[in-house]
């Protein structure tokens, strides 16, 4: 009787698995085709556009690396990611600590301000910001874009870090304060080490957002030497739009690090991204 029930339930699951596998094909199929195509020359691309490459052309990768100027653009994107993540974690962490632990007078007001600020669309302030940055000499400067990225990503970071810090028991801070530590020492030596999982999550989400960002990067970094991986790929794929092998190879080089880091730290990524979607 019992085994019949289990068998029954299992047969109920078969259609679910079939649909899920189809959805899996829908989600990963295009990525797979891109991987195949990165190994084809134009001739094979014409004969066999979707299938497995018959004679893999590995030269597409070094070619794309050189023609796409990846050495330079990877450096630019990495600098943007590092600067923004450091800025958001330190400055946003300090803000969150003030809101969560220091009983900032008017902290409700500040939270409201962050909510409004974070829901303003970029297109609203993009135009005046562009001309302000131009006057300040911050256009075509990685530093200028890092400042913008810090401002845009910090509300999400503050919300997440604050909700994490609020849950920390006050015992550790009290003990540190009895030992004569000031607020900065408490923040740096006690709160940050205790919150590092949350800092890691926030850092990953911000890093992904900056690495993939398109609008700000294409408006504020127009000099070729300052192109990011994304804006450079955008130009590259328009210029070599017919050489699908080459553009596919550079696409694979762009997404491999993302997918690798995502797979290793998928729990933190998914947690951070879904909470970010709900809070910021």
């Amino acid at each position, binding site marked *: 009787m019992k085994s019949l029930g289990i068998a029954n339930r299992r047969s109920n699951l078969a259609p*679910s*698995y079939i*649909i*899920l596998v189809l*959805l*899996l094909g829908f*989600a*990963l199929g*295009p*990525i797979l*085709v*891109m991987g195949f195509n990165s190994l084809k020359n134009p001739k094979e691309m014409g004969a066999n*556009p*979707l299938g497995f490459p018959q004679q893999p052309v590995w030269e597409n990768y070094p070619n794309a690396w050189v023609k796409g100027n990846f050495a330079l653009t990877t450096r630019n994107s990495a600098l943007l990611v590092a600067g923004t993540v450091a800025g958001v974690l330190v*400055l*946003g962490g*300090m*803000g969150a*600590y*003030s809101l969560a632990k*220091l009983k*900032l007078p008017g902290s409700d007001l500040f939270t409201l301000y*962050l909510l409004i*600020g974070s*829901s*303003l*669309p970029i*297109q*609203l*302030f*993009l*135009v*005046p*910001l*562009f*001309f*302000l940055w131009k006057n300040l000499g911050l256009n075509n400067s990685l530093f200028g874009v890092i*400042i913008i990225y810090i*401002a*845009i990503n*910090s509300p999400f970071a503050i919300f997440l870090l604050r909700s994490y810090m609020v849950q920390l028991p006050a015992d550790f801070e009290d003990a540190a304060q009895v030992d004569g530590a000031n*607020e900065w020492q408490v923040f740096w030596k006690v709160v940050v080490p205790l919150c590092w999982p949350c800092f890691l999550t926030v850092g990953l989400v911000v890093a*992904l957002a900056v690495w*993939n960002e*398109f*609008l700000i990067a294409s408006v504020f970094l127009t000099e070729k030497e300052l192109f990011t991986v*994304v804006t450079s*790929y*955008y130009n590259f*794929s328009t210029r070599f739009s017919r050489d*699908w092998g080459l553009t*596919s190879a550079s*696409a694979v080089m762009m997404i491999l690090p*993302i*997918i690798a880091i995502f797979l290793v730290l998928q729990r933190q*990524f*998914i947690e951070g*991204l*879904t909470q970010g*979607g709900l809070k910021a």
Partner: protein
Amino acid sequence: MRQSVIQMEGEYFGRETRWAQRKRFFRKRIVPWLFILPILLINLLVVIGPSLSALYYSFTDWSGIGAAKFTGLDNFSRLLFTDTSFKRAFFNNLTWLVIFLTIPFALSLGAASLLARVKKGAMFFRIALFIPYVLPGVVVAQTWRFLMNPIHGIGAELTKIGIQGLDIAFLGNPKTVMPAVAFVDNWHWWGFLMVLFLAAMQNIPQDLYEAARIDGANQWQEFRHITLPGIRPTIIFMILMSAIWSFLVFDYIWILTQGGPGGASEVLGTLVVKNAFFKFEAGYAAAIGLAMSFLAGIMISIFVVLRRRGWDI
């Protein structure tokens, strides 16, 4: 002699107390602000300041360089009454809204409820279906530009095996361009929505389902009467966010078509960029940006009003 010692002690302690008071005031009132000040200043400089000046510039004729000329409501009357590209962009944003409030929700709710039942491999499916969401838009766009290509994309291959009619230039045809771009955006978006819904579904107590099964409910009834009400707050919140984002959409449209062909996929977001940086009409661009924010604001207001009226959302 004795008195003066007491006096001195009094003065000494008095000063100590005042100093301690000042220190306490500093720690209670000033230090919290010192911690939040840097990020506050950056936010004011980047977001709030320029947003307020956008408000002003929307009432001016301004090329972006030099002085802005105050022109009152000219920009707004142009936007409402004479600019046909604004009207078309607005309707395209509405199309986007309709598409994104239906298809991704149906797809992700369906997939999440299937996945919630599954034990073996659930983790694998969850991670794999999430991957498109972490890819950069330029790569997603280029991949689908290839797959939708009429000469060697999926449509062409289907024609070879006898399924006709799909080998058309979806992105080059004014009739199909909006659904085609929305399809590409949705390909990278629905997995994220599914993972959100799945997380919400896992918080529904299992005994509700067991009770329903004992009562003889089928899968659809379980979904309709337990799953949907159980994750309602998440669904409603994502409906609100999708409605807001539908008026702010930019990336995928710009990357795939730049608003073309012939303005057929123009949205408010692409109009702002074109006016500000290609036509040097920064004042008018600011007005369009303001209109976008206004439309997003209306979505939030509808939400708030319905809630006040007692809708349980």
